[in-house]
């Protein structure tokens, strides 16, 4: 008392000597949970991570985070079926974040601005052969080159891209976009040899002095089905049709084109021939909701005037006409013949019944297991033969560009470890940031931005890209719809809502820290954290 001025009994702020942290039975801790988008991405992208940078308008940094996992963002922003958006927590609030459209914006921006990949850090001196310049091979080449390995791709065809070029029509993926992203990978010092079909993998490896190989030849052989047909019937497979679209000599299919099948390839063929002036009819034995093609593609095809006959099989093909039989679903959902027939005009029949893998390069290789026409690989993407890895459409999996890109990355990580005599261990996945972990109150209401779509007449008559991109301001808006699930985005809520001033703010980019001397463990910060980046854990007793 003696040192204080008149009438002053208590010194200001002296309650600091009372450490209220001792009251606590549970403590808050910061953590990063796994956002559902990242969890759903077959290419293993850190989507929330790159959106974070896009939110502040730093598109180059966003792109750099994106390409740590996927070197083909402009392609991916067009052809990916975006399972991320299906998993997006914002879908439970209004509608999911347009991740795919922001990815495309970043990819296009990178091409426009001429951003390049970082140069490889060190040279390992190891040589790796990649067979096939499709999405899987290109992805593996990129990741291996980044790790400092010397990579050579041997491609049987005259151009790079694989199914991205010879399977996906131009109206979904303009070729200059594909070329730009392939060129950027080659700029890292990756060698690409065209018209080089690997006949015998072991021999090619020995010849080139390769330490390991990654096989990614895809699945290019169209499956056939037995259809009783007259001599004059014109039957051709879908892969050949799509491939010939790339060349000068467009396929001669006539006016009435029957496409047999219900997958994405069938729809791609139908939409492509529509653009060449033909009248395609898709014949599929089951119903629309059972068709493997994505519903939005079926919808776009129908909009463009493609006819689809559901519940129908082709019984007989002759010159100028086919006979289809109507089907009915039984109680198990399988199509059964009804005995009702119908004749359709048909100048040609395109079979889109799936594709097989050309496995001839593997003949005589020991230790391989081949089941149902695909090469079996273990969880590290290696075949039964040491040093030979495989991925993409030639191994059992869903056949999409995104899955293939993911295979390429995974194989690269495993090859890198194998070359050092190690086994690649993926970091354990953190717990999932599901919707229940969020406090959605804090997010502004904002509906999804709709991408522009090409005029119908131009869709029916040209191969111009159907779906447009977002411009700068709409892409920024879309990025900012991200809820940042499970990952702190520095909203300062924990810092603001603590009744005990027990949160220390470390400054921009550095996050926060709890002051456990005073934190009483009330848990308000956990409840009020918008993105679920804090959790309570019991104190040890």
């Amino acid at each position, binding site marked *: 008392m003696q040192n204080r001025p008149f009438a002053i009994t208590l010194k*200001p*702020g002296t309650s600091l000597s009372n450490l209220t942290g001792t009251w606590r039975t549970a403590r808050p801790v910061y953590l990063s949970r796994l956002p559902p988008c990242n969890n759903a991405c077959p290419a293993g992208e850190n989507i929330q991570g790159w959106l974070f940078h896009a939110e502040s308008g730093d598109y180059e940094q966003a792109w750099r985070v994106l390409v740590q996992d996927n070197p083909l963002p402009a392609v991916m922003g067009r052809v990916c079926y975006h399972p991320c958006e299906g998993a997006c927590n914002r879908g439970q609030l209004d509608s999911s974040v347009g991740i795919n459209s922001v990815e495309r914006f970043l990819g296009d921006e990178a091409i426009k601005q001429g951003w390049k990949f970082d140069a490889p850090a060190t040279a390992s001196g190891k040589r790796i052969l990649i067979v096939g310049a499709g999405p899987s091979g290109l992805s593996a080449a990129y990741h291996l080159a980044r790790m400092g390995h010397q990579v050579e791709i041997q491609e049987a065809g005259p151009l790079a891209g694989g199914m991205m070029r010879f399977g996906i029509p131009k109206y979904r993926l303009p070729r200059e976009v594909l070329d730009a992203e392939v060129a950027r990978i080659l700029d890292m010092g990756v060698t690409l040899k065209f018209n080089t079909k690997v006949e015998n993998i072991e021999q090619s490896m020995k010849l080139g002095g390769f330490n390991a190989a990654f096989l990614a030849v895809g699945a290019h052989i169209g499956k056939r089905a037995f259809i009783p047909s007259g001599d004059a019937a014109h039957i051709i497979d879908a892969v050949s049709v799509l491939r010939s679209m790339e060349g000068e000599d467009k396929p001669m299919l006539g006016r009435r084109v029957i496409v047999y099948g219900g997958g994405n390839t069938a729809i791609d063929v139908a939409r492509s021939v529509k653009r060449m002036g033909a009248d395609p009819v898709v014949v599929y034995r089951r119903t629309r909701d059972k068709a493997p093609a994505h519903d939005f593609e079926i919808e776009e095809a129908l909009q463009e005037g493609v006819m689809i006959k559901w519940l129908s099989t082709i019984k007989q093909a002759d010159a100028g006409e086919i006979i289809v039989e109507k089907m009915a679903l039984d109680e198990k959902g399988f199509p059964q013949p009804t005995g009702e027939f119908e004749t359709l005009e048909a100048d040609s029949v395109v079979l889109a019944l799936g594709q097989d893998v050309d496995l001839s390069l593997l003949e005589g290789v020991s230790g391989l297991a081949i089941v149902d026409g695909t090469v079996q690989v273990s969880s590290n993407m290696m075949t039964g033969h040491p040093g030979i890895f495989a991925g993409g459409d030639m191994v059992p999996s869903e056949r999409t560009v995104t899955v293939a890109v993911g295979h390429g990355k995974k194989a690269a990580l495993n090859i890198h470890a194998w070359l050092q005599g190690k086994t690649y261990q993926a970091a354990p996945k953190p717990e999932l940031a599901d919707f229940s972990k969020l406090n959605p109150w804090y997010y502004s209401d904002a509906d999804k931005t709709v991408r522009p779509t090409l005029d119908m007449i131009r869709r029916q008559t040209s191969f111009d890209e159907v779906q447009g991109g977002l411009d700068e301001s709409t892409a920024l808006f879309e990025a900012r719809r991200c809820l940042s699930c499970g990952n702190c985005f520095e909203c300062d809520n924990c810092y603001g809502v603590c009744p005990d001033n027990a949160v220390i703010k470390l400054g921009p980019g550095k996050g926060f820290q709890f002051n456990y001397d005073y934190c009483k463990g009330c848990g308000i910060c956990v*409840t009020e954290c918008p993105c679920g980046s804090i959790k309570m854990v019991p104190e040890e007793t």
Partner: protein
Amino acid sequence: MGFQPVKFYQTGTFTVGNRLLAADERSLQSGETRSNSINSGHRACQGCGEALGARYAIDAAMAASNNQVIAANATGCLEVFSTPYPESSWQVPWIHSLFGNAAAVATGIAAAMKVKGRTEVRVVAQGGDGGTTDIGFGCLSGMFERNDDVLYICYDNGGYMNTGVQRSSATPPAARTATTMPVGPEPGNPFGQGKNVPEIAMAHNIPYVATATVADLRDLEYKVRKAMSMHGARYIQIFVPCPLGWGSASHDTIRLARMAKESGTFPVFEAEYGEVTGVLKIRHKISVDEYMKPQRRFAHLFGKNANPETIARIQSIADRNIRKYGLLEEECN
């Protein structure tokens, strides 16, 4: 790189801060330089709404007056938990006298400052709802009537919490307290009693009256700043949930304040010279039972002996608030 301004910032102004907003557009509480008028180490319960509300309000008052604030405090939780002898949590000049005379003490300080010519020094009085709506009501009304240059802040948690949760004239109907037990034909606090002090303050035609909650920080800071820009008698009532007295989880303090506002139970508005000049609209309307259910003081209205008639009566009070203040978006045009 230059880019178009976009009027959408992820969380907008709902969160305390927002890295996408310019520094001067963020809340005062998001800044490392906030004055922390009430320091760590205070003995408020876990999740205390009043401790939080007091820091929000006094920090804002400090920032609005170049840190020249003197605070007078009524007896109550805030006084007890912040100043157990020989410690004080306060980092502002602060005085406590009696339960019922905070308004009078503040009036005296304001008069003294005027006599000394210290026009830059601003006076704030603060108390809980017991010290404001019951025990200190005479002094408060006198302060309003004389239009003394004091901002009076009432932290409303609906009862005398630190003495064992007794009823006050701000306790909501049907709520259980130590003195309004959930027994008899009308269990809990009786309907039709109590006082609406913000409206009584408006009836004094003082320059500024406002209500706020700890769930709407931006609104609260704006109202304190606005009050500090004016002179004469001003009154702000801040809704501060009390985990102890309400029987709610300590982590639900802000959530309950938000639900009180979103259900219309606690209308958030501001008024100048007796006329309402602005209301904080309901964003996602909820019913009162959603707000009441997490609180054990209303537990007797739910469960086995559920009492839907009583809940309906409370709902009709909320509906009346919504109508009277125009709390829904469509009613404002």
